[in-house]
Structures are given as C-alpha cells and as structure tokens.
C-alpha cells in the first residue's frame, strides 16, 4: 500500500514515532491549503509561512492534542491554523502586505489561454482589487469568504474548521459577501445597486 493511501491517523502515529516519510505525506497533503488560507487571511507570506510551520510543529510536539474522535485531521489543522492567524491579526490588525505578494512572482499563476497584454493587465488588476477587498474584510467575515468561496469548502466543512455552527458560517458569509460587493463596487467606481448587506 502506498503511503498516500494510508489513513491520516495511521500516518500520524507513524510520524509521531519519527517516521519522516509519514510526516511528509501528511505535510504535503495539508500544507498547501493551510498556507493559502493563512496567506489570504493575513495577506503576508511571512505570516502564512509561520502559521504553517507552527501548525505542523504542534503536530510534532503535541500530537495528543489531535483526537480522531472529535473530527478529521484536516479540520484540526485548520483549527490550529485559525488560532495562529487570529493571534497574528490581533497583533497586526490591519497588516496588508500586498506589495510583498506582488514582488514575489510565484504568487501569480499565468493562465495558459492566450490573452493580450492589455487583457492580462486588466485581469491582474481585478485580481488585486478582489484580493485587497477580501483582506479588508473583518477577520470573521474574511474567514467565511476565504473558506467558502476561495477554498470552496462546504458550509459543513467550514463550520468544522472554524469550530462553530453552520448557521454562524452562513451568517458570516452573508455579511462578508455584502461587504465584499460594496467594497468592490467602490473600488471599481461602478455602484450597480444600493448595497443591501453593507448598510
């Protein structure tokens, strides 16, 4: 059986015993999503890097904190990442390091479809606007948007990751969407409607 086919609990047990391959399998499976989540929540590559590192250090140093009976490993890791992100946001509530993200070319994925330079520039600008708008949302609404819209989690998964009821996630997402709409309309200077949710 391939190592990637093993159940997370079995991999974690092996990793705790010092099996590097098992640990790397877990890391490779979860790190990307956790990094994106942290990056979108903090807007800082450095902070996202720290968050991912902290999450897996918890797994190495305090594996007993994860209890399979209480949920999946992915949800547990999201929970740890969320705590770290919130602590980071408490310390630096409005830290927006968009320039840092732009300076690093790896953040930009060049689409394969043929676009004119004008179209590419326009697309890039729209992405930056939406990124900025997401980062400008209050943390709890931002989290709902990031998990449900960007990470495409179901309400159930997002609720599990945040440790709250589904209704709370839906409510936060509703508010987040409304604020996002209002922000983007303002950024694009094209109010299409009276912003209902952002009253």
């Amino acid at each position, binding site marked *: 059986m391939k190592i990637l086919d093993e159940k997370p609990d079995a991999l974690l047990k092996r*990793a705790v015993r*010092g099996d*590097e391959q098992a*640990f*790397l399998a877990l*890391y490779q499976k979860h*790190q*990307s999503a*956790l*990094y*994106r989540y942290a*990056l*979108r929540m903090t807007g800082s590559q450095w902070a*996202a*890097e720290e968050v*991912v*590192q902290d999450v*897996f*250090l918890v797994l*190495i*140093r305090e594996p007993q904190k994860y209890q399979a009976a209480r949920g999946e490993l992915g949800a547990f890791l999201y929970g740890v990442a969320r705590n770290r992100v919130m602590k980071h946001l408490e310390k630096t509530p409005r830290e927006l390091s968009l320039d840092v993200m732009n300076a690093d070319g*790896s*953040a*930009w*994925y060049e*689409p394969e479809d043929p676009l004119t330079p004008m179209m590419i520039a326009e*697309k890039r600008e*729209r*992405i930056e*606007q*939406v*990124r900025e708008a*997401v980062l400008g949302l209050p943390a709890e609404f931002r989290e709902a*948007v990031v998990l449900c*819209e*960007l990470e*495409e989690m*179901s*309400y*159930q998964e997002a609720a599990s990751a945040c440790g709250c009821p589904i209704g709370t996630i839906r409510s936060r997402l*509703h508010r987040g*969407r*409304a604020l*996002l*709409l209002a922000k*983007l*309309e303002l950024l694009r200077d094209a109010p*299409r*409607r*009276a912003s*209902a*949710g952002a009253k």
Partner: protein
Amino acid sequence: MRHAAQAQEPSSLRTVRKVVAMMDCEEFELRGLDLDRADADPQEAAAAAKHAEICGRCSAMLESWREVKCDLRLLRESTWLDSAPARVEMRLKQELRTRREARGPHRTAVIASGALAAAAVVVASLGWMQIHHKAEKSVAAESKIVATGDMLATSPNENENDVRLAADFDTGEFTQLPGSLSSGTGDESILQVRMQRGALERYGLPVDPERASELVDVDFLVGEDGQPLAVRLHQDTQIAAVTQ
C-alpha cells in the same frame, strides 16, 4: 379541476412552489447568493432564481455577485499553486529528526535503567536465597551433628556434652578419610567430638584393638551434605597413636 391537479402534484414540488412564492428581497439577500453553490438547497435556489426574475434590484445584486465570483475564481486560480516555501519543510524535518535523536538516548537510558533494576532484583533474590539456604544448612548441620554424635559416641551423654561446631578449620592437620572426596567449596564445617577410639574404625581408619576403648577428642571435617570428609585428632592423640 385545478384542485384535482394540485392534489396530484408531488409534495416536494408543492413545497418548492410555496418557497418560490414566499421568497422576498430580504430572504434573497440572506440566501439568494447561494444560488450557484454546489451545496445549495435546490428548493431555495429555485426560489431565489424565481425571485431574481421578477425583482430588478435583487437581479442586479445577483449579477454583481456573479462578477465578484468570477473575480474570486480568478484569485483562486492565480494562487491555487501557492504553497509553503521549501524552507518550512526543511525546518520541520529538522525538528522531527532532532526529536527522534533526542528520543533515542532517552529510550536507551530507560532500557538500561530497567535492565539495572532487573539485575538488582535478581542479585537481591540470589542473596536472599543464599542466606536462606545457609540458615537451612545450619539447621541441617546441627541435626547432623546430633545424629553423627549419636552414631560415633558410645555414650549418648558424652556426645551431647562434647559435640560442637567450630567456625574455621586448619586443613594442614586433617587426614582425608578413605573414600571421601574433598568438595573444595569452602562450605565445610568442623565437628568436634569426643568418642571411643574404636569408633574410628567405622571410617576406615586402623585402630589398635587394645586401645579401642580409650576416649579421644576428634575433629571431623563435615561436607555440605553432612558426611565426614577428613579427621584430625587433638594434641595428645595423633593419628600415629591411633594407628598403633
């Protein structure tokens, strides 16, 4: 006729119709934007779509949201390949190795201490067993002394008075009894007995019949099994005299 058709409708369809009919702008703001989600409630989605068809304001909001969804999709696609830098993995691997290496000596120490503890228990048990065995042997030797005294002495009264154990013995003065083997373990005891000279004949020693009735003081070297191994006569009664 219409009532009859309604009665034939499935109940789920009737519910959809009811939800579609009931959704207003406020509800659309709350749930209408879930319209395109994969996990959206189909009834609510149908109701939201129906409401958007008839409400210009909510239709504009839905259109705006779909544009934002497109932008969010672009953002998602542009960052989909983002992942933690390789240095994070390196740091974590290092941490894992450090912990594994730290755990190795710890495990060795635990095993070593366990082995030492087990060894200590074994040594203590052996010591206790030896002490216990010696105590039993002393009791057995005392019994043997009495038995040997009875056997050797012509008079029971004399044996009871004269038999005693000595702590040490001088091997240089002892004469090995015929047929006995020296154990060499150092666990032998000396048994002092006053007995008739003639009784020495039982141990294979030659005795002058004329002096067989004389009383002599004899040291017996008694082995672990209580059997005499060697004999020694006291000062005035040397073996030579015995053999006269």
